[in-house]
C-alpha cells in the first residue's frame, strides 16, 4: 500500500468543495433576489420609486387592483386601505390612500412590506410613490393617511385581469432606533 501519498491532495480538494459549498449557501441569497427580480417570483415588487415610462393609456382594457392589509404578530395598529379596490386602465396613473393609527400607548415604528398576487404580475405593477419605501414612525395614538401612486404596465399578460396588492405591517421599532 503506498502510504498516505495521495491522501493530503484528495483531502485538500474535498475541503475546497466543502468551503465552496458553504459559500454557495450564502451566494443563494443574492442569486435568489436576482432570480425573483427577473421572474417576478414570490410577488416581490420594486422597493424604490419607479419612473413613469408607459407609452400611453390602453383604454380598451380594464384591470381591477385589490388592496388588502394585514398586521404581523404584535403590532397594535389599525391599518387598512381607504378603498378596497380600484379599476385602472394599463398605463394610467392612480393615487390611493391607506389609513394607519397607532392604538398603543407608546411610539412604534412600522414598516409595510408589499406583495403582489399573482406573483407573475409583480413585474408589471409599478409604484411611483409608496409609503412602503420608508418606515412609518407613529406616536402613541397618532393617525396618518399614507399615499400610494402606481400604474400597471401595458405589457401585463392578457390573462391577468385582477391584481391583489397585499401589505403586511411589521413593528420594526427595535431595529429602527
Amino acid at each position, binding site marked *: *500500500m503506498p502510504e498516505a501519498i495521495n*491522501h493530503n491532495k484528495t483531502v485538500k480538494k*474535498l475541503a475546497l468543495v466543502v468551503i465552496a*459549498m458553504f459559500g454557495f449557501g450564502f451566494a443563494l441569497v443574492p442569486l435568489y433576489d436576482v432570480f425573483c427580480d427577473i421572474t417576478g417570483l*414570490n410577488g416581490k415588487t420594486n422597493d424604490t420609486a419607479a419612473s413613469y415610462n408607459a407609452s400611453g393609456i390602453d383604454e380598451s382594457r380594464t384591470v381591477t387592483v385589490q388592496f388588502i392589509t394585514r398586521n404581523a404578530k404584535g403590532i397594535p395598529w389599525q391599518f387598512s386601505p381607504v378603498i378596497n379596490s380600484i379599476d385602472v386602465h394599463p398605463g394610467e396613473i392612480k393615487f390611493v390612500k391607506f389609513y394607519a393609527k397607532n392604538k398603543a400607548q407608546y411610539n412604534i415604528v412600522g414598516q409595510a*412590506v408589499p406583495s403582489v398576487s399573482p*406573483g407573475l404580475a409583480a413585474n408589471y405593477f409599478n409604484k411611483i410613490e409608496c409609503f412602503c419605501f420608508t418606515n412609518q414612525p407613529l406616536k402613541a395614538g397618532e393617525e396618518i393617511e399614507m399615499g400610494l401612486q402606481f400604474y400597471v404596465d401595458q405589457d401585463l399578460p392578457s390573462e391577468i385581469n385582477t391584481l391583489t396588492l397585499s401589505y403586511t405591517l411589521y413593528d420594526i421599532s427595535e*431595529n429602527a432606533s
Partner: protein
Amino acid sequence: MTTNIIEQESHEEHHDDHKMTGIKRWLYTTNHKDIGTLYLWFAFIMFLTGGAFAMIIRAELFQPGLQLIEPDFFNQLTTVHGLIMVFGAIMPAFTGFANWMLPMMVGAPDMALPRMNNWSFWILPFAFAILLSSFFMESGAPNFGWTFYAPLSTTYSNGSTAFFVFAVHIMGISSIMGAINIVVTIMNMRAPGMTYMKMPLFVWTFFITAYLLIAVMPVLAGVVTMLLTDTYFGTNFFNAAGGGDPVMFQHIFWFFGHPEVYIMILPAFGIVSTIIPAFARKRLFGYSSMVYATASIAILSFIVWAHHMFTTGMPLFGELFFMYCTMLIAVPTGVKVFNWVATMWRGSISFETPMLFSIAFVILFTIGGFSGLMLAMTPVDFQYHDTYFVVAHFHYVLVTGSLFSIFAGTYYWLPKWTGHMYHVGLSKWHFWCSLISVNLLFFPMHFLGLAGMPRRIPDYALQFADFNQWVSIGGFAFGLSQFIFLAVIIKCIKGGEKAPAKPWDGADGLEWTVASPAPYHTFTTPPSQEDIDGKYKDDH
C-alpha cells in the same frame, strides 16, 4: 483463501498489544472496526431515544383531545424526534456500516484518515447532548419542526434556536469529516486490482452518498448560520420586515434537504443490493445499471427541491419543472427495484433473516416510492401537503426503507462482527413483529392524510379516532419489537454458535475472506486478485 485467514490471524496476535483496555480503547481508538461499533451503538441509543419520543406522541394521539401533554411540548417532541432519527439514528448507523465494512470490502487495512475518524465520531455525542439538554431548560427544546422554517425558528422561536444551531453545526462537521474519510478511502485505498467497476455496489452507494454529504452539509451549515444571525444578531436574511424573505429559507433548506433524503436511502440500496444476491444465490442483476442509476438519482436530487414547496405560490412553470424532474427520479429508482426483482427471479432463494428484511424493504420501500410519486403531482399535492399522507410517505421510505436495510445489514454482518451466529428464532420474531406492527403503524396514516388530518397537531377531529387508535397500537408494538432486536444483538455478542469465516454460502465479497470475528487488523497485506474478482468472475 484459507491461507489468507491464517495469515490474518497471525497478524491479529502480532497487533494485539497495541489495543488499549477499558474506556481508553474506545476514546482513543483509530481502528475502523471500533469506530464502526461506536457509531452503530450510538445510532441504536439515539433510535431508542427518538423512538421514546414517538411513543409519547402516539400516546397523546391515542384519543382525540388533549390528555397527556401540552401542545407546545408535543411540538418539541415531534421536532426532536425528527432531528434525532435523521441525524442521530439513520445517518450514524450508515456511517457505522461504512466504517466497519468499507475498508474490508475494498481490501484496505483501515480508513484513510483514522484520527479524523475518531474525531468525527466523538463530537457526535456532544451535539446530541446539546440538543437534548434544551429539554431541561426554561425555554424548552426546539418546537419549530425538524425543518425549522423561518420565521418559526427566528422571530417566534422559544429561545432554543442557539442550542439547535450549534448542535446542527457539530452534526454537520461530523458528517462532513466522515464523508471526506469515505471518499478518500475509496479513491486511494482500494486494493491493487480493484477497479471502480469491480467495487461492490455497497461501496459505490457509500461513495456517491459521501459526495452528496460533502456537497449539501455545508449548505445546511450556511442556512443554520443565517438563522442564528437573524435570531440573535439583527440580520434580515429571512425577516420580511427588514427586506428578507422567509420563502427563501425554504429554498435554501430544501436545496440541502432533498439530497439529504437520498443520503438516507442510497446506502440502504447498497446494503440490499449486497444481501439479495447472497440469498438468491445469483449475481446482482445489472450491476453497471445499478451504479448509473445511483449516480443519476444523486444528480437529479439537486434539481427537485421545490417539490416540498408547491403551496408557497410558485409560478406555474416552476411547479411544472419541479413536478417533472421529481417524476424523472422514478426512472432510475424503478431500474433498481427491477434489478432486485430480476436478481431474485429464478434464484435459489432461502429466507434467512437478512433476506426477509431485504424483501420487505423492496416491497415496502416501493410503496413509499409510489406515495412519493403521488405527492410529486402538483395538483394533488395541494391536498396532501402537510397531512398525515406525507407522514405515511416518509416513514415508509425511512422506516421500512432505511431502517429495515439497517436491520438487514446488521443480521447479515453480525456473524462477521461478533464471531457468533445470531439466535435465528428470536431474529424471526423480530422480523415478523416489526413487519406487522410497522404496517399497522404507518399504513392507516395514508387514509388519515387523504381524509385531511394535518400533521404536527396534538389533537384531531373525532372521525379520525379509530385509525389513530390502530396507528398508536401499531406504534407501541413496533417500539416493543425493537427490544427483541436488542436482545438478539446482546445474545450474539455474548455467545452463540461459532460463525465460520463465511456463514452465507451465496455471499460474495472480500469481507468473507477474513476470519469471523474479523481480526482487529485486516488486509495489512492486500487481497489476491482471485479474491477481488470474487465467485462470479466467470459470469462477467
